[in-house]
């Protein structure tokens, strides 16, 4: 990258701490600070966010002064696929029911692996896993998850 940032890991971590700390500090201004003997809701968060910003500043300084290792590639595909299929499970569970949600979760996340090849074997394994989950979690342990959700009148 640029010549200013010598240690990207330090630098970006510092930026993250700084921004997180700043947001936390900003929000904490709305809470009463109180005094040391009567700590208000804002006392502890303000202290912590101040400390976090200080650490962030130190890390940024280190990032521009000390050479470090580059960041390395970001695994966009697995990160997006895993996050998206987890979110989809959450959305579908109450609406479409456990069976559909699991099917989407399993078949949706499987391609995240570079070794994934579509085979019927995989589908059978997915179905087996769904049957296992239904039997163990819903029938056996009685967890309140609808097999068919509100979309199917469940």
């Amino acid at each position, binding site marked *: 990258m640029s010549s200013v940032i010598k240690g990207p*890991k330090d630098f970006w971590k510092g930026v993250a701490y700084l921004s997180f700390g700043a947001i936390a500090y900003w929000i904490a201004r709305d809470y009463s600070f109180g005094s040391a003997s009567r700590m208000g809701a804002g006392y502890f*968060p303000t202290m912590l966010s101040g400390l976090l910003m200080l*650490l962030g500043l130190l890390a940024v300084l280190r990032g521009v002064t000390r050479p470090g290792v580059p960041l390395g*590639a970001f*695994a966009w595909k697995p990160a997006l696929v895993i*996050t998206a299929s987890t*979110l989809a499970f959450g959305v579908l569970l109450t609406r479409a029911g456990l069976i559909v949600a699991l099917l989407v979760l*399993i078949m949706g*996340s499987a391609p995240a692996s570079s070794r994934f090849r579509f085979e019927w074997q995989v589908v059978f394994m997915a179905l087996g896993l769904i049957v296992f989950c239904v039997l163990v979690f819903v029938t056996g342990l009685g967890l309140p*998850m609808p097999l068919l959700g509100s979309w199917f009148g469940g």
Partner: protein
Amino acid sequence: MDANLFANLWLGLQTAGSFINLFYCLTGVILGTAIGVLPGLGPVATIAMLLPITFGLPPVSSLIMLAGIFYGAQYGGSTTAILINLPGESSSVVTALDGHEMAKNGRAGKALVTAALASFFAGTVTTIMIALFSPPLAEIALKFGSAEYFSLMVLGLVASMALARGSLIHALGMIVLGLLLGIVGTDVNSGVARYSFDIPELIDGINFVVVAMGVFGLGEIISNLQNETERSLLVKKVTGLMLNKEDFKAIAAPVLRGTMLGSILGILPGGGAMLSSFAAYALEKKVSKNSANFGKGAIEGVAAPEAANNAGAQASFIPMLTLGIPSNPVMALMIGAMIIQGIQPGPSVMVEQPALFWGLVASMWIGNVMLVILNLPLIGLWVKMISVPYHLLFPVILVFCCIGAFSLANTSFDVYFMALFGLAGYLFRKLECEPAPMLLGFILGPMMEEFLRRALLLSKGNPMVLIARPISATMLTLAALIMVTLMLPALRKKREEVFVEDD
């Protein structure tokens, strides 16, 4: 030693020896071994996933099972380390150094037996230690005031920095980040909902289990998928499970030293299995007569760290059971499990729930017996499990995480949050931020605030109260000492070297 101890242990054995508790103990240790064998699935994620399922169990049974998963994982982790040079758990990283060399020389059976016996011996000694040291520690803890608790937590957090990889700024940064995340939710004192962004689900705060599952479950999956590696099994059939007289002679002293080191380091807040195994290996390399062979398949290099990691894992129960303070993320989950069952962890547990306390202690020894008996005959099964390819395994982990997250409070909101923390967990790994200190901070955040508030209220705002009380002052001094030592250039270099071996 008083007669009470035996009465207590007898009570414990009776509790743990009931049919139902034996069953859950067995389930726990088998599950633990399995996840220890499977690389990419650790005890934190597993316990987090199973936590909702234990809601319906009696408190003792649920704790016995969850504990079994934890120490069972130490056994399982060493199996993969020896057979495929891929440590199933971070605590068995050093076992791979000599264990895998032994396997290459056709001594896989011996390495496995050594690991199992060393772990068993360490587990037995540590169980006795927990029984011996917990009552006096709890006695002291009952005298603790707010200032002492606050300082103890500071000490715990500082000690956890010693374990984190990378620079101290970042370990500290992660702790503070965790503390801040822990504050989300209603302030117990003023009733103000902090950092809740008017989202009703956030008013009760972020569930710790969701964070643990996200960071250690999902985040781990994403980063494993980035570096998918071929796992080749070196040994298809393991034979020669007998140790001869020379072997026993060779491992006796290392096992003893490893156990000692592990149980001391395990008690320290922030300590635990991983630090213990590294330290034991380093120590053995220095003192052993056979040190020239270390790294080339020395049996001592398997015995010492294996004893140490099991001792460390079990000793970390001591601060959890006596003070109610977690020394690692797994203990934090155990505390979560106790709270769910309506038990407030802390020194009073021993007095108010003797059957639970001693039952748990006794179950650890029973569990260790089960592990040593089970592990060797079942080695074939574990070998088969190792060969399960990751691309078939990770969707299963994901499914259990999702179901676990949902059933915590029967809301999809927790699933969304888990996904978010999964992404964060991957970023932490990418940026080399250690998630464990953050998780400890997360748990301790609200407690620290409350204890600080009370301490300062009593002292009328004078922070000197933290130094004026001797126990509190001692702990803060210790914390400061650890900080200073960690910053010394010589040690800093050494520490980086130790963690490089981890990669």
